């Protein structure tokens, strides 16, 4: 009974205040979309970091069949060449620079590749012999990359020495910027949403002051008086959050699954499934936002 009553109060509040409620829905929708976008950038960064960033500082790729470097003149790297490179890496000469060395065979490279590009169609067309063997060298001091580069890039059997850190860091920097910008917009929009929710609740409280006055007189509890207002704001914000989630999911399907994955098959992208992780967070955020701002407003405008 009490629930039915509160629901009917919410219904009448929303009907009376439809334009304001609609604007609350739209503002929370947009602000939470930006919050979600910032979240997705971070997920994407983590996705890429997760595989690369911590493990690989310098990679010495060994020659494969079709390598064009002069050091690969003899074709794919031979057993002797590989042993020589490994011995050189582990020699005393490089001990001050090299922390650990690990060897990755072509099969292992394929395994990693498949893990990393699980969402990409390219996976099916790659075979182990297309991927180079490599030595993964982590350095005592990551800045000393040039020492390794000079010493090994012309070694027979070495295709290339690459420090992926630079490349990755540039990308992460751009993505971080993008997520900061998204968060900034989200912050401003969220602020707007809070103000708008407060104004809406204020208007709603004003238009229902007769009812709340009577409720007070006949001894309605604070919860019964205030809950319809709070829930009105929360419902509007949750609808906004659901719209934001749907938009993010739609955009990720369209942009990532439909376009980016095909256009940049070498890059690991988050899947649209991962967007779903954000949905409960966005809804919760919307609900908390609306709940808090309406409670604060009610404290001032609805006497209990």
């Amino acid at each position, binding site marked *: *009974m*009490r629930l*039915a*009553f509160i629901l009917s109060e919410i219904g009448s509040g929303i009907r009376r205040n439809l334009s304001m409620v609609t604007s609350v829905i739209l503002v929370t929708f947009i602000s939470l979309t930006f919050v979600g976008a910032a979240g997705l950038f971070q997920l994407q960064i983590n996705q890429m970091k997760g595989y690369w960033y911590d493990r690989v500082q310098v990679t010495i790729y060994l020659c494969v069949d079709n390598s064009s470097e002069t050091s690969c003149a003899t074709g794919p790297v031979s057993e002797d060449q590989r042993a020589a490179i490994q011995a050189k890496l582990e020699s005393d000469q490089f001990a001050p620079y090299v922390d650990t060395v690990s060897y990755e065979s072509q099969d292992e490279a394929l395994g990693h590749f498949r893990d990393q590009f699980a969402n990409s169609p390219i996976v099916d067309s790659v075979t182990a012999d297309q991927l180079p063997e490599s030595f993964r060298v982590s350095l005592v001091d990551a800045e000393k990359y040039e020492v390794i580069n000079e010493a090994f890039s012309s070694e027979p059997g070495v295709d290339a020495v690459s420090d992926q850190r630079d490349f990755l860091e540039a990308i992460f920097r751009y993505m971080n910027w993008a997520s900061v910008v998204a968060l900034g917009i989200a912050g401003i929009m969220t602020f707007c949403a809070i103000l708008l929710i407060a104004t809406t609740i204020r208007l709603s409280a004003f238009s229902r002051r*007769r*009812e709340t*006055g*009577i*409720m*007070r*007189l*006949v*001894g*309605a*509890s*604070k919860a*019964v*008086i205030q809950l319809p207002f709070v829930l009105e704001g929360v419902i509007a914000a949750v609808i906004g959050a659901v719209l934001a989630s749907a938009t993010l999911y739609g955009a990720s399907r369209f942009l990532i699954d439909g376009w980016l994955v095909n256009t940049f098959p070498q890059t690991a992208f988050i899947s649209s499934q991962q967007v779903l992780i954000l949905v409960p967070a966005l809804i919760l955020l919307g609900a908390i936002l609306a709940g808090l701002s309406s409670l604060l407003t009610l404290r001032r405008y609805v006497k*209990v």
Partner: protein
Amino acid sequence: MIRFDSVTKTYDQKSQPALDGVSLDVDRGEFVFLVGASGSGKSTFIRLVLKEDQASKGAVYVAGQNVANIPSWRVPRLRRGIGVVFQDFRLLPNKTVFSNVAFAMQVIGRSRAVIRETVPDVLATVGLEGKNNRMPHELSGGEQQRVAIARAIVNRPGILLADEPTGNLDPTTSMGIMKVLDRVNQNGTTVVMATHDDDIVNTMRKRVVELRSGAVVRDDAQGIYIGETGAVVE
């Protein structure tokens, strides 16, 4: 039922107090007229009983409890024991007579079955049988006030406070309202009615407490109305 113990209420420091050292006892089941000119402190009295305001000095007891000691979350419970009727009825214009009365039960969580059973009874008590589905604007002033009384008593409060309930009504209609209030009183509810309607006071012959500038100047067991000039109006 209601006890004022040297109650002073000052709204702001500079002005004269709205109530000035008022001591008053209203027993269970009593009917008391609170008379006095506008600004004499009648409404302040009612606000203090409802704990809408706090006494500046002294203590207000309702049903034996000092209202100053009631924590804010228990105030609704205090108010459930008190029905209130105003001069301007304060009905919800978009609800029917039945819904207006039912509203008072809904907001304190009464079940639909209890409401459906109780409301028609109460409407009969105030003389509004068969008007369940009317809207307030379709009713006369007297009928609207009866709806307001029905709403005030539907939760069976021990006390009914009426702030100038006949202020907007003609004499005949007013007498009808007084009959209703008297019936409510007969059923055991303590009634405190603020008014300056001399006819009513003189007809009813109930206890009369007169306030002037916030002080009790007269408390007669079966009183009459005395005008501001001091002349007996009869």
